[in-house]
C-alpha cells in the first residue's frame, strides 16, 4: 500500500528508498552547518551569555558570582564615566557620520567626472582606508604632537601658538574625529562611485534637455538615485562610530580625563583592565539595545524615502 502510494506521488522517486527522502532536510542543515556553527559560537552564544551575565555580579577569586538582578543597570545609570562615554560617542557619531558621508559623495562626484589623473585621485582618496588603524594613528599622533608635529609647525608659520591637540580635553575628541573622517570617507566614496556609474547617462541628459542645471540635476535626479547607497553607507557609518576602540587605544587611551572615552572602549576598559567583566556585559547589553533601536529607526524613517531599483 505504502509503496503504491509513494509511486503515485513521485515519478522519479518510485524506486528510491524512503531514507533518501528523509535525508533532504538533513542535507540542507548540513550545508548550513559551517556558517551556522561560526555564527552560534562567535555571535549568538556570546550575545546570549553577555545578556545573562549582565544580571550578575562579577565573581572575585574564590567568591562565586551572585545574582544582581537590576543592580548592575542601576549602577550604570549612576556611573558618570558611562554617561561621559555615551555623550562622547553621540558627539563622535553626530559629527563623523554626516561629514564623512558628505565628503565621500563629494569625492565620488569629483572623481566620477572627466578629470585628469582620475585613477590617481581615486587611489589617493581610498588610501587611508587601506592603512591599518595602528599605522594611521601613529601618523596622526606625529601630526598632532605639540610644537614638533606637522600641524603645529604649519601653525607656527602663521604665528599660532603651541597646541597639545591630543592632550587637551577640549581638542582631543575633535582630533580623533578628524582621523575617523579621513579614514572612512574614502571607503564610502567607493560605494558612491559604484552607484554613480549605475545611473544611465541618458537620465542626466534628459534632465538637462528639460532645462535642469547641474545643481537641479544633482538634487532632483542624482541624489534621489543614490539614496539606497546613502542608507547603506549611513547605517554602516553609524555602527562603525559606535564600534571604535582601536583608534582610542592607539591614540589617547581614553584620556585625558576620559575626554576621548567611547562606549566600546569603556566596555573594554571595564572588562579587561578593571576585570569587572559582568559590569562590562551590562554596558554591552545597553549598547546593543541602543544600536539595534537606532538601526531600526534609520531603516524605518529613512528607508521609506529610498527608491530601490
Amino acid at each position, binding site marked *: 500500500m505504502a509503496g503504491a502510494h509513494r509511486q503515485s506521488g513521485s515519478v522519479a522517486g518510485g524506486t528510491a528508498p524512503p531514507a533518501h527522502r528523509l535525508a533532504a532536510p538533513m542535507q540542507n542543515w548540513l550545508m548550513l552547518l559551517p556558517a551556522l556553527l561560526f555564527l552560534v559560537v562567535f555571535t549568538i552564544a556570546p550575545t546570549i551569555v553577555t545578556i545573562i551575565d549582565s544580571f550578575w555580579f562579577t565573581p572575585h577569586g574564590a567568591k562565586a558570582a551572585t545574582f544582581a538582578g537590576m543592580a548592575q543597570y542601576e549602577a550604570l545609570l549612576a556611573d558618570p564615566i558611562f554617561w561621559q562615554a555615551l555623550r562622547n560617542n553621540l558627539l563622535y557619531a553626530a559629527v563623523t557620520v554626516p561629514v564623512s558621508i558628505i565628503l565621500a559623495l563629494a569625492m565620488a562626484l569629483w572623481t566620477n567626472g572627466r578629470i585628469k589623473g582620475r585613477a590617481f585621485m581615486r587611489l589617493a582618496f581610498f588610501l587611508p582606508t587601506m592603512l591599518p588603524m595602528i599605522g594611521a594613528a601613529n601618523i596622526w599622533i606625529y601630526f598632532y604632537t605639540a610644537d614638533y608635529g606637522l600641524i603645529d609647525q604649519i601653525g607656527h608659520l602663521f604665528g599660532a601658538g603651541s597646541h597639545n591637540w591630543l592632550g587637551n580635553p577640549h581638542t582631543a575628541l575633535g582630533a580623533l574625529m578628524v582621523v575617523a573622517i579621513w579614514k572612512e570617507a574614502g571607503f564610502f566614496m567607493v560605494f558612491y562611485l559604484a552607484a554613480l556609474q549605475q545611473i544611465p547617462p541618458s537620465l542626466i541628459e*534628459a*534632465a538637462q534637455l528639460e532645462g535642469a542645471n547641474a545643481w537641479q540635476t544633482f538634487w532632483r535626479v542624482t541624489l534621489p*538615485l543614490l539614496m539606497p547607497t546613502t542608507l547603506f553607507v549611513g547605517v554602516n557609518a553609524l555602527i562603525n562610530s559606535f564600534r571604535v576602540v582601536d583608534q582610542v587605544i592607539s591614540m589617547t587611551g581614553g584620556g585625558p580625563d576620559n575626554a576621548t572615552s567611547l562606549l566600546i572602549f569603556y566596555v573594554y576598559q571595564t572588562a579587561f583592565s578593571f576585570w569587572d567583566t559582568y559590569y562590562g556585559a551590562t554596558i554591552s547589553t545597553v549598547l546593543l539595545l541602543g544600536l539595534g533601536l537606532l538601526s531600526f529607526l534609520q531603516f524605518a524613517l529613512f528607508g521609506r524615502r529610498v527608491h530601490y531599483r
Partner: protein
Amino acid sequence: MGSVAAEDLVKAYGPNRVVDHISFKVAEGEFLVVLGPSGCGKSTLLRLIAGLDDPDSGKIRIGGRDVTGVPGSERGIAMVFQSYALFPHLNVAENITFGLSIRRIAAAERAKRLKRVSELLNLGALLDRKPGQLSGGQQQRVALGRALVAETSVCLMDEPLSNLDAQLRADLRSEIRALQQRLGITLIFVTHDQAEAMSMADRVLLLRGGKIEQLGTPHQLYAHPGSIFVARFLGSPAMNFIDLTENVPGFEGIGERTMTAGLRPEDIRLTLHENGMAQVEASEYLGADCLVTCRLGENRLTIRQNGRNAAQIGARAQLNFDPAAIHLFDTKTGQRLHADVRNARKAHEIIT
C-alpha cells in the same frame, strides 16, 4: 517656427568622421525618418540637433534661428530616448511634469497640461505609478508624454520603439504618426528599421557611413533607389541583384556588362514548367505570401508570390517579369543608371 535645418554638419570622434558634411532641411510639421544601419551616424546626428553634442563644424537652425552652441534646453525641442530615460524615483505624473516644474510653470498650468497629455496618451490610470511598475509600452507612452507636455514644435526621437515587441511596435507606429499629424509637430525620428521608416515618414533620410545616401519620400526611395545600398536597405526581402558581367539567361540584351540589374521579389512571377531555366531551391511560407528562392545560372533570386501557390523544391520554373521593373546600377560605383539605358523589350519578358 518648427523647421529644422542642418548645414554642412561634421562630427568626428578621433579619426572617425561619424557625421560627414550633412545638410538637409525639415519643413514645419514634417515627419522625417533618419534611417541607416548601426554605426551610420544617425544617433549622433540627432544628438547634434538636440544639443547633447556639439558639431565640429557646420550649423543647426531651428525655426530659422541659428542654435549651434545653444544648450539643448533652450532650443525649443523635446526628445524621446531609446531607453525612455524615465526618472525611476518619480511617478508618471512627476516624470511628465519634470521639465515644467524645472521651468517654474505655475501649478495650475502644469495640472492642465498633464491632464491634456494623459488623456491624449491614455495615461490617466497610471499617473501614480513608478516607471518600474509599468510595461515597456506604457513606459514608452510616458516618455512620449514627457516630450509632448513641453508643447515644443520640434520633437526628436531616438529609436523609441526598438525595445518593444513586434505587435506593440506596430501599434505605436501608427499612434505616433497620428499624434504627429494631429498636433502638427515637426518630428525627426531615428531608426534602423526600414519598415518603420516606410510606414511613418513623410520623407526618409538614409545615412551611410556618416553621409546622406538618399533623401526622399518612402516611395521615391523604394521605387527609384539611388544606389544599390538604398535598394538593398529598403524592402523585405531585399531586392534581387544580377551581375550582368556574366551572361545570365533571360537577361541578354539588358543593360551592359558593367552593370548590375535589380529586381524586386514582387516584380517576378514564377510559373512551374518542366523546361524552365530556373530551379526552385527553397520555399518559405509566410501565410499571405510565400518566398520562393530560385537558382538561375549562377544567381539566386527571391520571388514573392501568393501563399497559396506552394512550389516543390527542385521543381523547374519559368520566371516572368516586366522589363520596366528592372533597376540598373553601375556595378563599380553602385549608383543608379537612368531608365533609358535599359534596352526596351517587350512587356512580359519570359525566361526559359
